[in-house]
């Protein structure tokens, strides 16, 4: 896939010790960039993607032939203005769009890793991505930004590299995965495992894909990204291309058809084992635990300016979990701003056209940039 699409890829020579104890080296990180790095190299923004995202933040995604996942926020004259800033985004390790992941071949056995791929963490992901800074010769990023799992990476990155970002923008995220979040992820993983095509993770050798299980995982997860009100307003009890109920188990309702569609397009672009690995990384995320239970200690070395954003209808990463990060920062006198954006679009709000969110993001970045 790499060669066909000519993905930009950095081969990391430096060994990386993973949290699980294993060490990886000579591994690829696939990335994409937008805009131009200025001479001072002080206009770079590292964007971290969420669970099913990739490096194609904006413009046309060559895999899906659709707009990049954050096209509302990133691009010329947008909140993250690529006329002004140099945007870097890379596929996380464990992912399936060019970076080192379970669909790669184990160089020792020449077989696809599958579930023999080492379990990775959010910490491993950001440590791997840090290599991109050296690659571009960037000492300090102007900003690090991300929503959902991207926000978790933002928090981990600034904790690991306190001097490497001037501004820090975690969006709709948490400092540790709640029982409810772990539960939903486990539901997705079990759906994949229940698909006989999964074959204990070794489906490449059988030339099959657990697409039914992966689709169900996506359908369940997709519900958690929306709000009850948003779903009700968009779909209600509307029927799908039919006058009346059919007294069967076809998709009578529009919401059923919509979810089935979401599931079916997802399997075309995402690897089931990557889904297992990345959801696991999210579940293992507990930043305070890395600092003996004191979240503030994760940030005590940094002088970065934080801006934390949550959404009213996000019940997956609710405002209170975002505010807990604000509280941890305030208790050490860090420079932190916080706003909760009114939106009925649920957790997905950060990916959508939510004008109050986009203007807050734009204003914060612009003002912080001119304060240089």
């Amino acid at each position: 896939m790499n060669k066909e699409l000519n993905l930009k890829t950095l081969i990391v020579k430096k060994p990386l010790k993973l949290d699980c104890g294993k060490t990886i080296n000579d591994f690829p990180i696939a990335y994409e960039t937008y805009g131009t790095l200025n001479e001072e190299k002080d206009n770079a923004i590292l964007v971290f993607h969420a669970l099913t995202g990739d490096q194609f933040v904006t413009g046309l995604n060559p895999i899906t032939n659709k707009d990049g996942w954050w096209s509302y926020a990133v691009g010329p004259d947008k909140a993250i203005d690529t006329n002004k800033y140099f945007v870097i985004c890379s596929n996380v390790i464990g992912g399936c769009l060019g970076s080192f992941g379970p669909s790669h071949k184990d160089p020792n056995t020449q077989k696809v890793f599958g579930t023999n791929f080492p379990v990775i963490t959010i910490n491993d992901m950001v440590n791997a991505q840090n290599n991109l800074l050296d690659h571009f010769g960037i000492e300090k990023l102007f900003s690090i930004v991300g929503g959902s799992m991207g926000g978790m990476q933002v928090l981990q990155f600034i904790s690991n590299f306190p001097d490497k970002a001037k501004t820090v923008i975690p969006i709709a995220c948490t400092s540790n995965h709640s029982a409810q979040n772990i539960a939903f992820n486990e539901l997705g993983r079990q759906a994949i495992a229940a698909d006989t095509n999964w074959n204990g993770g070794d489906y490449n050798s059988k030339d099959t894909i657990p697409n039914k299980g992966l689709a169900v995982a996506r359908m369940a997860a997709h519900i958690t990204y929306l709000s009850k009100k948003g779903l009700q307003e968009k779909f209600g009890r509307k029927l799908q291309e039919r006058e009346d109920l059919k007294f069967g188990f076809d998709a009578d309702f529009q919401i059923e058809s919509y979810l089935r569609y979401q599931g079916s397009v997802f399997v075309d672009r995402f690897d089931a084992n990557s889904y297992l690995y990345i959801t696991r990384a999210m579940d293992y995320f507990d930043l305070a635990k890395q600092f003996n239970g004191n979240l503030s200690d994760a940030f005590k070395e940094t002088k970065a300016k934080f801006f934390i954003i949550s959404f009213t209808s996000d019940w997956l990463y609710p405002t209170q979990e975002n505010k807990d990060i604000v509280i941890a920062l305030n208790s050490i006198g860090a420079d932190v701003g916080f706003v909760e954006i009114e939106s009925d679009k649920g957790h997905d709000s950060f990916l959508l056209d939510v004008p109050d969110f986009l203007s807050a993001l734009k204003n914060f970045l612009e003002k912080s940039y001119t304060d240089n």
Partner: protein
Amino acid sequence: MKNEFKVIADLIEKDKKVLDVGCADGTLMKFLKDNKNINIRGLEISKDKVQKCIAKGLTVIEGNAEKDLMQFPDKSFDYVVLSQTLQAFLNPELVINELLRVGKKAIVTIPNFGYWKIRLHLLTKGTMPITKTLPDEWYNTPNLHMCTIKDFVHFVKSRNFKIFKSIALNNENISSISDTNLGIKNLFADLGIFLIEK
């Protein structure tokens, strides 16, 4: 900028760390940041106003002073400012205690319910007073605990807080409040500004 903010700004020395509680659209914050090199933070309950502050490049936390002051450590600011908001809290005493815990000093301004126009309005019309500083009707006012300058001075003294400065404002006029002129100022000022410490 309104006179009240000029007086507040004059009470704060350069290069200090200040929290503006109920910072609204950030007018005072911006002035302090630009003119006095103040390391300024704001706390504001209204989403719209938080957005305005962000557009000015100010660091603001959306929140409610009655709950969210708790997260700040003791004496983490040189000054905490509370402008014309005390009367709108469910528990003003709790808020004052929090201001004086979080800030080394607090600057509190109150719309004076003892102002002669208010007294006259109530005396002659017999209805709840509406003035420039108190523009709302009784049924939609956010103000729950109105007080007079005299009430506030008595309260502060009863809690053994120190008053460093008491200033009376009446339109363009700025004057000091003392023990001897308290009754007069309580009648002729529409706003009181107090610099206090625990």
